[in-house]
């Protein structure tokens, strides 16, 4: 067993700490936001005056159906509130996400530094079965930063190996971004643990991640433009090929 020293040390902590820890904690209750009538009136006015353009939720997020394909050029925007309650509950059971109070914390957590105003975080993890085999892709985390390098929003993509693809997005009013879906059919052998930095000819900085799947390779690049995260992905026969395709798309995007 690893870290025997720590276990022994933890076993020795004093009674006061042990008993304090087991006391019933005061549960946190998030206070309901106070809605002022003036704001409500303004909102009603705006709703009446401005035609509402509903964002179409075109992707199949059904838990029971296997997603076969995904058009990476689709720029579907979804909000948590748009997901069905059932799906949200299902997601909440499994999702593994992290909140950051600042980009600095996110940077520390991920272990890389982000360029000012064009930031992303990518972190992936795998769960394992009893034999140590990777069974499930657990999460990816993205953070958008503003000019002050403060995290404005966090989005997490979560997908499982059996083909279910789930995206869970947290947004603030300052940022918007696409659905950020990936599709991996099987556990791959080749993936880069660290996102690779790439600077486009126009000077945008982005990072590229690679994940293999059944002999095909996905790459994803992310840019933050005008505080909007744009993610472009590509598929190739090899990692290098996928990366080239991605870079091409990134350059075209500009």
């Amino acid at each position, binding site marked *: 067993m*690893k870290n*025997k020293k720590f276990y022994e040390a933890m*076993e020795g*902590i004093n*009674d006061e700490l042990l*008993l304090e*820890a087991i006391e019933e904690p005061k*549960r946190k209750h998030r206070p309901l936001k106070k809605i002022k009538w003036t704001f409500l009136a303004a909102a009603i006015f705006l709703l009446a005056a401005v035609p509402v353009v509903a964002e179409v939720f075109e992707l199949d997020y059904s838990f029971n159906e296997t997603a076969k394909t995904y058009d990476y050029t689709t720029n579907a925007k979804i909000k948590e509130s748009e997901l069905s309650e059932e799906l949200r509950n299902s997601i909440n059971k499994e*999702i593994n996400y*992290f909140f950051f109070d600042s980009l600095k914390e996110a940077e520390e957590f991920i272990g890389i530094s982000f360029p000012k105003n064009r930031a992303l975080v990518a972190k992936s993890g795998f769960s394992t079965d009893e034999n140590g085999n990777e069974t499930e892709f657990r999460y990816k985390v993205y953070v958008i930063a503003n000019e002050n390098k403060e995290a404005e929003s966090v989005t997490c993509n979560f997908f499982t190996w059996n083909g279910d693809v789930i995206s869970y997005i947290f947004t603030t009013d300052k940022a918007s971004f696409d659905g950020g879906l990936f599709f991996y059919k099987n556990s791959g052998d080749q993936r880069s643990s660290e996102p690779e930095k790439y600077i486009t000819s126009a000077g945008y900085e982005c990072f590229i991640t690679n994940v293999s799947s059944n002999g095909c390779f996905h790459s994803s690049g992310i840019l933050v433009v005008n505080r909007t995260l744009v993610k472009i992905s590509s598929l190739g026969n090899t990692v290098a090929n996928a990366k080239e395709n991605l870079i091409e798309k990134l350059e075209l995007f500009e």
Partner: protein
Amino acid sequence: MEDKEIIGLFVNRDEEAIFAFKENFEAYCRKIALNILRNEEDAEECFNDTCFTLWNLIPPNSPENLKAFAGRITHNIALNLFRKRFTQKRGGGEAEIALSEFDECIPGTETVEETIEAKEITKIIEKFLYSNPPEKRGIFIRRYWYMFSVSEIAESYGFSEGKIKSILFRMRKELKKELEREGF
């Protein structure tokens, strides 16, 4: 029944001590064992061993706080049982997951000298925990002493699992720095 009364029964070798102890602390001790072993039968066995150990230890011992004393005994018995099972068959329990989270903090130990160092580490951990607010140290101890799962802790505190994981991650990181500063 108060702790002192129960201890008095133990001291007087009165079997009523076991019943009184069970009534007051069975749930607490079994939860500690269950968190580590994740098996009701093993937890029951562990609790019975705790009662037996208490019977042998009191007297001569007379603990100031019976709950903490018994909890510690249960914890040790459960961990020993867990280790025994662990060597038989790798895999499973919350204990393994919780404890493996500390792989990054301290190198593994093999020698007696290193084991003695654990006491110094205890002091550093205690100092570190006291430097954190009660809520955070509660979360930390629930995870790494009581071996609660992250979801159980999140439920208790009314936080998301993500937040609990973030808190634990940051605390581990801070503790690691603290230990390195102290030469570990």
